[in-house]
């Protein structure tokens, strides 16, 4: 019953996504949580493109989330860029560039080395940003990002109310999701999944799998960067922790909880994680202990995650 419902959603994923998220702010205790789910969901979507669809486990995705956030934040707060679009664009660009550079280096090694290398480069970036305090605010984080209205040809949309910001974020996340759906349905998307299933065979079929992997890495970093840039606009400050390994771990956990390699898994996971965090942190300071335990249980017993289990997992979709 649930499985049939879920597979029906699978046939019109983008429409289902938009319908659900149009109502979402009214289903959660407060609007900010809804926006957080959207933003972290997008972050997890980016991570999932690389892990779930291409089979590359990155433990350093905080780097691209952080590059997006700091790129947008520095543009708006320090460089005097006067438009939201400029800030978002620079954040996304910084993340994609960083993804291309780091991806190139990390893809020199495969498998488990790859995970460790992405983690190491993310830590490198963390320390660099930490020490460039004049530009980035260092330990205190970057403050003073102005709340500009989003200007379109005929109107300027104020983003100050949390509901307005939610729908602004939904429009962008929706665009990203549509774009991702098209990429995954394209021949390129098929090659990604072929690489995940059997890299050697993809090589034998004549695909330059290193180039495809790097492209997937850059796309993934760009999506994470857009999420980071949106988070910077939402908070108007960027805590230095957005670049720390804990943020990388968070997105890994969200994606795995929801279901890696599924289209909606990342959003389901982000919602589960954030709602759990929200509820648990009221009850106990040691909430990471509970989330860590739940995560371990998922790795052991439900490796397909919530959405993957409901819909039959990676291979069933």
């Amino acid at each position, binding site marked *: 019953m649930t499985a049939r419902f879920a597979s029906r959603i699978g046939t019109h994923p983008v429409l289902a996504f938009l319908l659900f998220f149009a109502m979402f702010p009214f289903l959660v205790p407060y609007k900010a949580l809804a926006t957080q789910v959207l933003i972290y969901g997008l972050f997890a979507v980016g991570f999932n493109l690389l892990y779930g669809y291409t089979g590359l486990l990155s433990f350093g995705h905080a780097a691209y989330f952080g590059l997006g956030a700091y790129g947008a934040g520095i543009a708006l707060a320090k460089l005097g860029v006067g438009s939201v679009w400029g800030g978002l664009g620079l954040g996304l660009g910084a993340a994609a560039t960083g993804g291309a550079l780091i991806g190139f280096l990390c893809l020199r*090694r495969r498998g488990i080395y790859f995970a460790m290398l992405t983690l190491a480069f993310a*830590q*490198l970036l963390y320390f660099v940003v930490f020490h460039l305090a004049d530009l980035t605010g260092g330990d205190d984080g970057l403050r003073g990002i102005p709340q500009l209205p989003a200007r379109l040809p005929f109107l300027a949309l104020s983003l100050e109310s949390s509901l307005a910001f939610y729908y602004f974020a939904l429009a962008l996340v929706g665009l990203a999701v549509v774009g991702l759906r098209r990429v995954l349905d394209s021949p390129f998307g098929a090659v990604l999944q072929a690489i995940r299933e059997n890299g050697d065979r993809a090589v034998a079929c004549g695909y330059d799998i290193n180039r495809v992997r790097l492209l997937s890495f850059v796309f993934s970093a760009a999506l994470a960067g857009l999420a980071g840039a949106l988070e910077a606009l939402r908070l108007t400050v960027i805590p230095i922790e957005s670049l720390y390994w804990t943020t990388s771990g968070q997105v890994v956990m969200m994606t795995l909880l929801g279901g890696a390699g599924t289209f909606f898994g990342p959003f389901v996971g982000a919602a589960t994680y954030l709602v759990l965090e929200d509820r648990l942190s009221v009850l106990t300071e040691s909430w990471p202990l509970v989330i860590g335990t739940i995560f371990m249980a998922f790795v052991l017993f439900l490796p397909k995650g919530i959405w993957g289990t409901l819909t039959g997992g990676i291979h069933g979709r």
Partner: protein
Amino acid sequence: MVDLSLATLVTQLFTGLVLGMIFVLLAVGLSLIFGLLTVVNFAHGSFYMLGAYFGFFLFGLTGNFWVSLAVAPLMVGSVGLLVERFLVRPLYGRSIDDPLLLTFGLSLVLIEAARLVWGKIGVTFDPPRELGQAVNLGFTLFPAYRLFVIGVTAAVLVALWLFLSRTDLGLIVRAGSRDPLMVQALGIDLGRIRLLVFGIGTLLAGLAGVLAGPMRGVYAEMGVTVVIEAFVVVVVGGMGSLAGAVLAGLMIGEVVGLTTLIAPKLSEIMVFIVMAVVLLVRPSGLLGEAGLLE
């Protein structure tokens, strides 16, 4: 300008050596576990942290540092045995990423558990009184405790090398890393060997923790940066190569030690720059074999 007299330089080289020794202890354990179990133990830093806290706890109980030094690593190794048996073992035969994900979750749990038991703020753990003074090395005074750390680590490494190269069990461990199927075909129960190696690896991490506690402070997150640096050491040395881990550990210890002297802000970054250079020039690491376990 920084004072770069010969004495300062040599002192800093010794400091780098001590740091390098801690890296080596962690990296050797990681490398052993990875070689035989193909498990990247993300929780290795948490075992290091547990070693320091267990040492602190035992010191509070007995007032004797030597008891801490002897018993805490054994306690950590026992936790390691339980972790392998009940958490890691079910994942053999699944994706190589799964144990990494599991031990990541475990590290969160252990860090949070340490905060719960010993508090959010770190504790201080003094070196034993016998080793509290500085030793005159002729050109400089150097804390006796740090010399002791160098000695203990060197002794442990020699013992480990003898174990791996001169005993039957060591031979099985080495053979198991190279060709597990063949070893099993010869009628050897690799399950128990894996358990043993995970125990030894975590024991070494625990030892590194007890040794580091009096030098670097004891706090719940102490393992996090260290484990990432130990990963780098393993990558630079060449995965699965113990000699590589020793070489890279000492090298990176010295690089960090010297950078701290010349440009302190760069010291945290240097580790990663060394790694990037090695990756570009020699992707399989200093002493690693290309394509091993990828």
